[in-house]
């Protein structure tokens, strides 16, 4: 009996968080069948095998190039039946999580999102709750289970296998396309904030959108995504999808660098899953220092260029 893993692609490429979902399923110990939808670059299938899938179902339906959530749910439900899979694993995302919730209703499965660790005996999963301020341990009681994992729940790593690729199709009706996507605006070429290993965020201490160049230069040097505090997004200095915090994006990078952000509790809620936090602030009393691993009291416009140079020198 296999575990089914929903693998999400973006512009034909497998999302990194989906590789973590594959690793998660692989570590659960049963066989892993991956399912991937829409147009996928040929080389990506090999990647799925390397990361633990024994079999890959490919639904080459161009209508699924768009995140048609209802249709995704229908396909995943049918695939669970056809593969005789009791467990569906996927990465939390704006497409995956709602699709998974619908699958849970259709299959009478126990559902958990924001899962941060492998299940303990008795199928007890650890979930991140209160926006990263606590955890809960939840027993998934039904025979079927749907698990949406949070970033870093498992480390994506190659296990050196190869997968059998199977063309798979499910009849979809009009009701599976009950929402119509009429346009998409996406930052191009950037590293996606929710998936980034390093995030550089700026706050009001940056004094204005025209000063973001040095912060972007630092981010580029680190191959980091850029984020910002809520006031910065509220003042439209930066787009809303960069807003990190309680009511914005929750990030879980290896390294989070906060510049000119005082560290309101609502901002901390979005970053408390980071492995290492560096705070750079002119105000030695900024509350963010209490939540930091490393701190520098100094002026952003003085410290940022020095930091960029020091990183370049290290490389």
């Amino acid at each position, binding site marked *: 009996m296999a575990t089914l893993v929903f693998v999400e692609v973006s512009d034909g490429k497998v999302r990194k968080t989906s590789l973590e979902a594959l690793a998660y399923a692989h570590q659960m110990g049963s066989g892993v069948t991956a399912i991937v939808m829409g147009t996928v670059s040929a080389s990506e299938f090999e990647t799925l095998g390397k990361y633990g899938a024994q079999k890959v179902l490919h639904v080459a339906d161009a209508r699924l190039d768009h995140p048609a959530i209802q249709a995704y749910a229908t396909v995943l439900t049918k695939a669970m039946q056809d593969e005789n899979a009791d467990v569906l694993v996927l990465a939390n995302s704006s497409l995956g999580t709602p699709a998974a919730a619908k699958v849970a209703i259709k299959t009478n499965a126990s559902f*958990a999102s*924001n899962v941060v660790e492998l299940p303990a005996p008795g199928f007890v999963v650890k979930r991140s709750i209160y926006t990263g301020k606590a955890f809960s341990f939840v027993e998934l009681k039904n025979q079927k289970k749907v698990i949406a994992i949070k970033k870093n729940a498992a480390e994506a790593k190659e296990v050196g296998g190869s997968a059998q690729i199977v063309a798979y199709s499910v009849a979809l009706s009009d009701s599976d396309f009950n929402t119509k996507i009429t346009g998409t605006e996406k930052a191009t070429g950037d590293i996606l904030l929710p998936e980034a290993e390093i995030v550089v965020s700026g706050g009001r201490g940056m004094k204005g959108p025209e000063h973001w160049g040095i912060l972007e230069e630092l981010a580029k040097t680190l191959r980091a995504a850029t984020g910002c505090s809520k006031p910065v997004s509220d003042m439209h200095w930066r787009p809303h999808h960069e807003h990190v915090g309680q009511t914005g994006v929750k990030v879980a990078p290896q390294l989070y660098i906060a510049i000119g952000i005082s560290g309101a509790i609502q901002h901390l809620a979005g970053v408390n899953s980071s492995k290492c936090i560096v705070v750079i602030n002119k105000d030695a009393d900024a509350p963010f220092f209490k939540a930091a691993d490393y701190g520098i009291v100094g002026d952003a416009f003085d410290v940022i260029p020095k930091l960029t140079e020091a990183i370049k020198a290290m490389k």
Partner: protein
Amino acid sequence: MKILVCISHVPDTTSKINFIDNGTKFDTNGVQFIIGPYDDYALARAIELKEANAGTTVTVLNVGLAETEPTIRKALAIGADDAIRVNAEPTDSLFVATQIAEHAKGYDLVLMGRESIDYNSGVVHAMVGEMLGIPSVSPVMKLDLEGTTVKMQREIEGGKESVEASLPLVAGCQEPIAEWKIPNMRGIMSARTKPLKVVEPKTTEASVKTQKFELPAPKGAVKMISADNVAELVTRLKTEAKVL
């Protein structure tokens, strides 16, 4: 048009989270409860739609025990017409979605926040949509009505998406869909007499069971580095924290 706004009753975002009874129960001591911040956006948009479209009514629904009534009254003070409280503890997403679906039939628009800020599942809207067999969209940053078509903007990783769907519809909301509304004195006075119906929950078999809660391990003390010695930070990130 009939709008249903589902609200959660959650600790204020500045609350210190603690558990008692061997980590099995949330410690409400000293905690102030509010309308879920995302639900508050949903409510604000509902009131705007009511003000712009004559004959529109807004009903608020909460799944919670009697202690949530002040939170419900606040939603009535902000401008909702009436309220339903499903008299049960909101234990998990499926349970809450089941209760909402039980009462949501007949509404054109079911709005709620993208997630509750206590359990953060972020799926009740999707589950309700599935149970009722109607579209669900989340997280919605913009929502406009054109006849029976709903035009929305949804946040996706690294950007946004324009989506359309027909009524009836479920939407999980977030900023900047509307500005939060603060109740005025007249609203607060009238909220006292607006109808608040208490109903018993539909019984369901639990699919999940929360066994216990835990707080994250405390963080070590911050290591301060001089602004004149930025290179040391880079060295430490590489050799000590091992994140570069």
